[in-house]
């Protein structure tokens, strides 16, 4: 059975992840053991640096945060949007987290979500996470806006 880091590394090299790179939805910037930094591109061309903390990958949910170039989780590093967007993305300090049953920090705010084990519904967990953030930043109904 593959270790968490072997599984993570394998998934990062998958065709699905590479397709997203080729489509310029995201770019893998750095991997430091179980921590992965991914540059996400929004529909308006703005980019956001997403830190994915993947301890226990495969069994545990990923903890995602938007961070500055210095890898600091500050409000200015987070994408913003309208009321719909703020249902998923809490972009105002001190509550900075992605409110989604597949995110470890989101689960921290909604203890009942842990039992759902929703992060296990994707065979490629990190692709499932990145594809969700891609939708947040690109599908109009999710409410992302650079000007909000």
């Amino acid at each position: 059975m593959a270790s968490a880091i072997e599984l993570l590394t394998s998934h990062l090299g998958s065709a699905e992840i590479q397709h997203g790179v080729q489509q310029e939805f995201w770019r893998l910037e750095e991997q430091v053991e179980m921590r992965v930094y991914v540059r996400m591109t929004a529909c308006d061309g703005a980019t956001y640096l997403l830190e994915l903390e993947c301890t226990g990958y495969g069994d545990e949910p990923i903890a995602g945060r938007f961070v500055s170039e210095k890898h600091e989780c500050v409000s200015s590093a987070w994408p913003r949007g309208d009321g719909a967007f703020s249902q998923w993305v809490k972009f105002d300090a001190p509550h900075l987290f992605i409110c989604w049953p597949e995110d470890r920090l989101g689960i921290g705010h909604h203890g009942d979500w842990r039992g759902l084990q929703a992060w296990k519904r994707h065979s490629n967990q990190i692709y499932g996470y990145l594809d969700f953030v891609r939708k947040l930043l690109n599908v109009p109904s999710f409410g992302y806006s650079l000007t909000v």
Partner: protein
Amino acid sequence: MRVQIDVEEGNGIVATAECEASAEDTIELVVSNAAGRLGLEVEEILLDLSAGNERFERGKRVSEFGSEHRWKHRRTCIDIHFETESEEHRFPVSATWARVHHWTCNHFKVPHDLCANLELRLGSPTGPALNEKKEIGQHTGCETVWLVKPGPEPNGFGD
């Protein structure tokens, strides 16, 4: 001089039109004279038009566009699916996927509000998403693409 415009699909020329042009004519004018005979819209042809290695740019004149007067317009086949319907259509190779999205909504009469929140996926309704700002590109055979709802995502409200 005579200008020849070839329409290329796959590896073959499927249509050709010739027309008289002067060196000072704009490319848009020459294409507008030939488009009807090719059965295509002028704007579609201009989205992918080359002369040798040179690509079309607006405002250029015939004398400034390549050394030969044989131009090429490339098209590629997309097999588009929306819900239970499907249709094969050919698009300019250099057009973006956004054109496929809009064409599909028009063709299948998808309401505007719904159309804006659909996305293109490659191969199947759950295939990888396509970036609509990127060029369609040239595909072997007919590339299957689905226009789908991105799907609801549960989330917590408030906090």
